[in-house]
């Protein structure tokens, strides 16, 4: 990707899925590449199992920390339907990367709303270029429910023209800083690889 173009990525999902950590790692990677980077999200009330969105923008010079509607290159949806809330943000050439994992909102559980039966179809009807992946299942196979975010970052990394070594370095730095055990470090590394090679 040429450095003069802006890159806009919107990550969305449910509070507690590790979205803020994913956007943090992504921002560090983009900064390492040499871009000006801004990212924005809302803390507080939104974290208690509510919808969460994080905007990440990179380019030669970035002003607004929020992505303009119609200009997102990617929506990385951590949950099956969350991405559908933000389709207006996608640019005509943009891609929706969708984790097929369903997290049922309370409004559905108590019968005040319905969970869409076929999210894939909704995306298709709106001509959205969609890639679906069952990251929760991959995470389970790897032995940790918590690495869904790293798998999805791996999928995203596939489409960004960024030297994979930068990703590996930033991930490793993060795991070192968090003092993760060797076992967990290995699971996270494989999670990224699984996403990247999916």
């Amino acid at each position: 990707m040429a450095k003069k173009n802006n890159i806009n990525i919107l990550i969305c999902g449910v509070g507690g899925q590790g979205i803020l950590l994913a956007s943090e790692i992504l921002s560090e990677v983009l900064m390492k590449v040499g871009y000006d980077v801004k990212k924005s999200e809302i803390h507080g009330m939104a974290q208690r199992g509510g919808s969460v969105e994080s905007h990440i923008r990179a380019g030669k010079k970035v002003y607004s920390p929020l992505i303009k509607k119609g200009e997102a290159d990617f929506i990385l949806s951590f949950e099956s339907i969350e991405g559908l809330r933000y389709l207006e943000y996608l640019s005509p050439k943009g891609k929706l990367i969708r984790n097929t994992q369903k997290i049922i909102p309370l409004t559905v559980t108590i019968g005040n709303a319905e969970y869409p039966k076929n999210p894939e179809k909704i995306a298709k009807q709106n001509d959205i270029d969609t890639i679906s992946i069952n990251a929760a299942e991959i995470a389970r196979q790897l032995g940790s429910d918590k690495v869904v975010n790293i798998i999805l970052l791996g999928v995203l990394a596939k489409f960004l023209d960024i030297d994979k070594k930068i990703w590996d370095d930033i991930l490793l730095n993060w795991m070192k800083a968090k003092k993760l055990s060797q076992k967990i470090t290995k699971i996270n590394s494989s999670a990224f690889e699984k996403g990247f090679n999916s």
Partner: protein
Amino acid sequence: MKKLLSGNEAVARGIYEAGVKFASAYPGTPSTEILENVVQYKKDVYCEWAPNEKVALEAVIGASMGGVRAISVMKHVGLNVAADPLFSMAYIGSNGGIVIITADEPSMHSSQNEQDNRHYARAAKIPCIEPSDSQEAKDFIIAAFEISEKFDTPVLFRMTTRICHSKSIVELGKKKEVPSKGFTKNFQKYVVLPANARKLHLKVEERLKKLEKYGYNCLLNKLEINDSKIGIITNGIAYQYAKEVFPDASILKLGLTFPIPKKLISEFAKKVKTLYVIEELEPFFEEQIKAMGIKIIGKDKLPITFEFNTNIVEENLLNRKSYREIEVKNLPPRPPALCPGCPHRAPFYTLHKLDVNVTGDIGCYTLGGLPPLSAIHTCVCMGASIGCGYGIEKAMEQNPTGKVVAVIGDSTFVHSGITELINVIYNKGISTICIMDNSITAMTGHQEHPGTGKTLMGEQTHKLDLIELVKACGVKKENLRPVNAFDLKEIMTVFKEELAKSEPSVIITQGPCIFIEPKNKKWKLFEIDSEKCKACSICLQIGCPAISKSDDNKAVIDPIFCLGCTVCVQVCPFDSIIEIKR
């Protein structure tokens, strides 16, 4: 060195670099992370959580009088609590530099109103400074202290959620050593009795004039002269949106946003053909600029409510929509909810069953007002649950027994509930009050408070004993009922007993927030025995995000979310929820 920092992280860095010695705050979104980040510099900056914003600011005023640079941090509504000392401090001025950070919340992501606190600067006649990204957040804090000392004034430093919680790249600087001036008795300056205050007010007016002149060429106000067709006066985050929509326009970006630099604005207005004022929330600049007789376009086109973004600025000022409209109908709303394992769930389920009127307060437990628990019926401000409950009872005086329960968290009770309880006792109320004690300030991200026995800097300290405190306020021993927050039966019995009394009672539901439990805690795990489950949906009524309905309408527990609090087990009439090995 360059780092990617949020506005809050950058401000914390600025506080360190400015040589600040004392910082005090009460947590409040979106300001909380400022002191949480200052604490990494605790060798250089003493920092603390105060019981509330008024206490925080008064300590900071003292520290300034004591000769060091001092800062108080709060969310916008926190400044309402601290307004009393703010207005006195405006007359007293500074000794060591003194800055008050107000973190305003356009769009009210986690707040009860969207007041624009620039009005406080104007009302208190003190300068207001506003950054537009993280770099400025750091640099302007340092400038704010210089202005405070140069002009003998407190400075209001206004941020908004989008500045606080957005990250951008910051070039770090070096720490400045600022020696303490010490405290010197100065009756005319520090004692605001009327005779002194009259003289001080005259000084304040002179100070404002000087500050306005200073704004003419100070570095906080930035002039970008480009195309003369369009000129824009803007501030804060709105500047970033203006740059996206009008890349070629001439821009006057105000960083010192009160007093406004009138001469600079007049000169700028003469240079451009059309002048826009792009500011979030109130027409603060707009009204002042219009009063100068300058023609501008502002709130006649731009909204007065909620946050801006690039689309809003573009659509309202240029009448241009540059995206494909896609409306996906009937997506289920996903509001925040009480977490699985939350100690507030069982008390709220009980209050829901009892069908009483519940006056609520500010904290996680406000979420108990949402369906299916629907057990909060008023929410006003910090501490108001007890006062409102008492007032409702007074209004329904004929037979109020058993009708009203006030619920308040432990941190909120210490913040401003104690005086409310004293009032209930003093004025012979009969309130039933429930202190939901989860042993932390939860909603803002788990901060210590006087009831936790730990300080912001990680030190052990005296732990405020809520039970002794409530007793000392005058609640009778037999009407003071600590209960296990997870035991539905016990909670129901105690509520029924206390609601039947015509004396004030305090029930304390005790159970820690799941986030402060030890990392290695062995959480229990439950699952639904689908043979026994009769699909009665009763367990769905406790509003636990870990429980949902399967295709055959039977309940199902998501093992990723379940923390084994057992509330669902206690409500299930068919014993179909069983413990399994994690």
